[in-house]
């Protein structure tokens, strides 16, 4: 099993979700996060007080998938999340030791 952790632009979330659904991925967890990589932030001014905002809003997707679908799913995800500009985000892939379905004790890939 692999875990895919993708940090993407918030406005790309719907497209990514649709694309993953279309290839039969039906579980994911998302959270609203803030962060930055090489992308520079922006400047805000309130009554002359300037603030550099470098942590920008992003969406983090987490999904755990069977090993054999890794390639297909990451390619789909990346294609859907891409705008081609700095700030599009990153995808990280981890090995997962085990999974347990809380409802009925299924383990391993059967729990996904």
């Amino acid at each position, binding site marked *: 099993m692999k875990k895919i952790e993708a940090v993407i632009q918030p406005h790309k979330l719907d497209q990514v979700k649709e694309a993953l659904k279309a290839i039969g991925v039906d579980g994911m967890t998302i959270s609203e996060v803030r962060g930055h990589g090489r992308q520079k932030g922006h400047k805000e*001014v*309130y*009554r002359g*007080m300037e*603030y550099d905002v470098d942590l920008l809003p992003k969406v983090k997707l987490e999904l755990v998938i069977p090993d054999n679908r890794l390639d297909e799913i990451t390619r789909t995800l990346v294609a859907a999340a891409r705008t081609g500009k700095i700030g599009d985000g990153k995808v990280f892939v981890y090995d997962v030791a085990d999974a347990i379905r809380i409802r009925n004790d299924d383990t391993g890939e059967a729990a996904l």
Partner: protein
Amino acid sequence: MNQIKRLCCCAFPVLAAFAIPAMAQNVSTSVDAKLAILEASSKAAQSAGDNAWMLVCAALVLMMTGPGLALFYGGLVRPKNVLSTMMHSFILMAVVTVLWAVYGYSLAFGQGNPFVGGLQYLFLNGVGNAPNTDYAATIPQQTFMIYQLMFAIITPALISGAFAERMKFSAMLLFTVLWTTVVYFPMAHMVWGKGGLLNAFLGGSIPCFDFAGGTVVHITSGVSALVCALYLGKRLGFPREPMKPHNLVISVIGACLLWVGWFGFNAGSALAASGLATSAFVATHFGAAAATLGWTLAEWWRMGKPSILGAISGCVAGLVAITPASGFVRPFPAMLIGFSAGIFCFFMVTAVKSKFGYDDTLDAFGVHGAGGTLGALLTGVFATNAINEGLKDASGKLLPLGLVDGNAAQVGNQFIGVLISWALAIVGTLVILKIVDMLVGVRASKEDEIEGLDLSMHGEEAYNLES
């Protein structure tokens, strides 16, 4: 139609009562009697109109404090201090009301010396439905009293912009009780009370024009705000940590309520539903509009982008500046006053504040102190007897008011009025802060400030969205 019926029903028995004996006597008595009735009923009608308008104005001015100012200020602080900031405004609606009833109205509008009123209206003694002809001959004195109360409420609430996010609540209460007593009531008496030192219309020795409170409300509160900001020191982390306004949406709503409420503040200061009220209404609106544009354009030019925080700040700056002038100036001078206030206050809160480095949290000084001073001075320039017919010589001829009427000396009088209000505000506020600091301590503890005043002072949080 109903009204006509009602009039007939009332008028017939009255007329008949006079008419029947009149037939027995001579004709001239009957005409006199009819005239007396007519006079009485036209007076009653005027009184009804004026009173209706003034009660609405009183409510409008209260609306400026809550929710107007509470929202305007509340949106500008961080989320951990929004409730405490709104509380500063709201609690004063209660505290100052009690002070006003016990002794405030008397100290402001009682017959006294040039500096402070006497005690004859203590506990509102003798303040009833009969008009106080010195101030407003057509409305019950109670209406005048409750209308003036709303000004006493908003003035200390304006100061809270300077000490927001770091003052202890107990200290804030004690401070405002003392401040209202020592600074506001005497200042209101000096400018508006009969025989007050600066009262141009009721026997003051230095005639100063302040239609709705440029000196009394905005200079006193704005200058006191600066003293508070300097005395309390900067908020922890200022200016290193970001302290962005947490909700500009509610600030915009607050500013819009202030704009509307200000019609009650300025036009109501005519104390009657008169043409003068209309002039003040028009000047107020034009001043606010021009100031909004003044600040916005200055900000666009200097900062690169026109912000809505800038637009609403400019609007308030213009309303402040037009306040003393509103019942004295024509529409275009009103726009000029507003436009210059918008630009002037923009530079005060951006360039001047950052140069000196004081932490006037919500720019109570930069907007009210600076705008009020500019407005009070420009009133001396643009006041004209074409708008305000309050000053006449013995033969009934209108006297020139401001520089535009040829009375250059008025600018000097306005300057003296400004100086006196600055001096009273600085000295009064410093002394009061010292006393409050000795008694309870003015500043919240470091832990309380970091936790946020909502939790540390009031035990509650504004936004419980996840529970």
